[in-house]
């Protein structure tokens, strides 16, 4: 069949137009494909992983709204690890091999971070870990393509013990050698990592570690652990856990009459103070939590100009997206660390190292040098170089110790930035207060 003349002409001109227009369109839509992995379902989702994911998206959207980075739009592809390490590994492979993403970003669970980081590094692909904290991700692994601005678990373990040692004498009237410390933790890399940091630091300080025990985060019962805690009579409990296990612990501890003078949590479930108050009301008053600080708690005057506004924007958008009153620290971590990558590492990779391939990103990351006060969470960013025991880990990140007092989060340690004189021991009104 003959195509009529006019139609042929029209087709030809359309084809020409398409040929000319395509490269222009492609140029206008230069993009960085970012594979983002968090847990949007399963038990970790409510423990802060979803919050990290939502805040990461806010950072990506904000960058795109401001015109992208050096002519590149950020095309984030969000994947759900379903709170399972094997799914996280599969999704990482899918994003890299099928979606052909330029890098992977995100990760809440250390149990996912450890295997995925090793795998991605072996493939010589680039990974930026936002939230997972286990020191084991980097320690002695000599990773080259994996970077993490986040605090690591050894620091958590040390921070709480340092804080305890500072208040023990003054507030508990107990010499360190007589201080009874119990360490309990979920048994994944996250809990075990923090707990080993606790154990080492407490023994170095000469404290008595009366119990150090792990349990599965999905365990339906913790009553024998609590009975043992009662028998061990600790002054201080150092606890690392996710969400369902922490609420189970508090509930069963109350029902079984466990008493202590102070309790310090280490992130994850303890960071979700809204949830804990919903569940336990005043019972969780005066509990401590170690974590990188939630950005909105810092005084913007101590930070680089403009960061206060950035935090306000995060808080506004997060509250809108989730319909909540409190913005958890995980939102700050998800947002801040994504923001650092997009606004510090990425432009340098494009401008000075010729693009967005893993090699360019790696070089740009190694040159990161943000001083303290240069991020919305206060700490600076500089990565330990290749060859260092912790190569790829941020050497400037620090956690703080917070105390929840009457529904508000206060900074209790380090002393230099504290916003409250910590309440220790637990006041008699608490059902957990030692009698």
């Amino acid at each position, binding site marked *: 069949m003959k195509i009529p003349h006019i139609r042929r002409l029209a087709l030809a001109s359309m084809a020409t137009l398409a040929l000319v227009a395509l490269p222009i369109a492609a140029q206008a839509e230069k993009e960085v494909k970012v594979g983002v992995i968090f847990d*949007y*379902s*399963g*038990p970790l*989702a*409510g*423990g802060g992983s*979803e919050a990290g994911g939502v805040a990461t998206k806010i950072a990506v959207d904000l960058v795109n709204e401001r015109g992208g980075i050096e002519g590149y739009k950020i095309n984030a592809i969000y994947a759900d690890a379903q*709170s399972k390490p094997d799914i996280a590994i599969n999704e990482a492979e899918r994003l890299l091999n099928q979606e052909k993403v330029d890098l992977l970003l995100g990760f809440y669970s250390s149990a996912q971070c450890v295997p995925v980081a090793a795998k991605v590094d072996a493939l010589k692909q680039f990974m930026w870990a936002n939230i997972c904290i286990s020191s084991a991700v980097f320690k002695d692994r000599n990773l080259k393509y994996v970077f993490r601005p986040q605090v690591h678990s050894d620091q958590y373990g040390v921070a709480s013990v340092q804080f305890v040692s500072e208040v023990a004498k003054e507030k508990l009237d107990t010499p360190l050698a007589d201080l009874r410390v119990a360490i309990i933790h979920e*048994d994944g890399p996250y809990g075990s990592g923090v707990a080993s940091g606790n154990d080492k630091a407490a023994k170095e300080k000469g404290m008595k570690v009366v119990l150090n*025990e*792990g*349990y*599965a985060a*999905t*365990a*339906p*019962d*913790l*009553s*024998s*652990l609590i*009975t*043992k805690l*009662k*028998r061990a009579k600790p002054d201080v409990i150092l606890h690392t856990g996710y*969400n*369902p296990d922490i*609420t*189970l612990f508090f*509930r*069963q501890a*109350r*029902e*079984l*009459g466990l008493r202590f003078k102070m309790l310090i949590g280490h992130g994850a479930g303890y960071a979700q103070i809204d*949830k804990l108050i*919903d*569940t*336990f*009301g005043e*019972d969780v008053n005066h509990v401590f939590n170690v974590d990188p600080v939630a950005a909105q708690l810092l005084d913007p005057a101590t930070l680089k100009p403009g960061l206060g506004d950035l935090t306000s924007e995060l808080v506004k958008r997060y509250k809108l997206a989730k319909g909540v009153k409190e913005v958890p620290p995980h939102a700050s971590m998800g947002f801040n660390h994504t923001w650092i990558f997009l606004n510090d590492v990425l432009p340098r990779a494009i401008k000075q190292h010729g693009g967005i391939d893993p090699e360019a990103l790696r070089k740009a990351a190694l040159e990161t040098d943000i001083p303290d006060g240069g991020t919305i969470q206060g700490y600076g960013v500089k990565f330990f170089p290749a060859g260092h025991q912790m190569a790829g880990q941020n050497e400037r990140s620090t956690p703080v110790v917070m105390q929840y007092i009457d529904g508000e989060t206060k900074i209790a340690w380090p002393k230099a930035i504290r916003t409250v004189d910590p309440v220790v021991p637990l006041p008699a009104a608490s059902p957990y207060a030692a009698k």
Partner: protein
Amino acid sequence: MVFDIYLLEAIINGLLLGGVLALLALGLNLIFGVIDVVWISYAELVMAGMYGVYWLYAFFGVPLVLAALIAIFGVAVLGFLVHYLVISPILGKPPINQLLATGGLLFFLQSFATLLFGVEFRNIGLRLPVIELWDMYFSFARILAFAAALIGMVSLYVFLKRTFMGTAIRAVAQDREIMATMGVNTRQVYLITSAIGGGLAGLAAGLLVLQYDVHPAVGLSFGPITFMICVLGGLGNLLGGFVAAFIMSQFISIGGFYLDLEWGYVIAFVFFIVMMFLRPQGILGRRG
């Protein structure tokens, strides 16, 4: 030997945990015993019931007991529907197909709950009184669950032995082909059994919601161990499941008391595996 009050507390708390597990095993066992189908998604029905109680009580202000009764009825309807929509079309198919179908239902219910309620942990915010006896402490919610398990077990027994419907259910459980040829409407028996099984899941939900947060993945904490208890006791054997629940809970509790908590579970599972070699039909199961 010095009397150890902490050990006694661990043993009694183990008994109370056993009550919770026995209650969970009851409905699953009944369904398997009669219909010969394992509802792998049983714990997810409990999850649905827990959401029901949560919304009714915490959100709509329905009194707790009434909310629990509505949940029992609601999950009974859900159990009826599970049989009607999922099981009944594949009743004559190989067991693996049925297992996969209820496995699919598990993921469906989990995802559906995630969509509907989000991933947040919710709880009814009720703090029950603490029970203290001779320096030992016990959970009020657990004691309630323990009592409910006992009452549930006895009522189910009476129902099966003393009522016409119960007799029909037992008859079908013994030989479903013959009963069909004798004019018994097996389909009706299956539907009623599924509804009772669902109702028991609803009862468990009403009690678990007092002790645990509700979230879409809450079934993960109970599903596997409930299934193991049913197998250990002899799938389909109500009394066997009841006994097995207490055996497992004592391993967990006393094992966890003397060793690390995790070891309690390890010992319980090793015992389970050994028993599967020695008595594959379960502690009180029929050989067959």
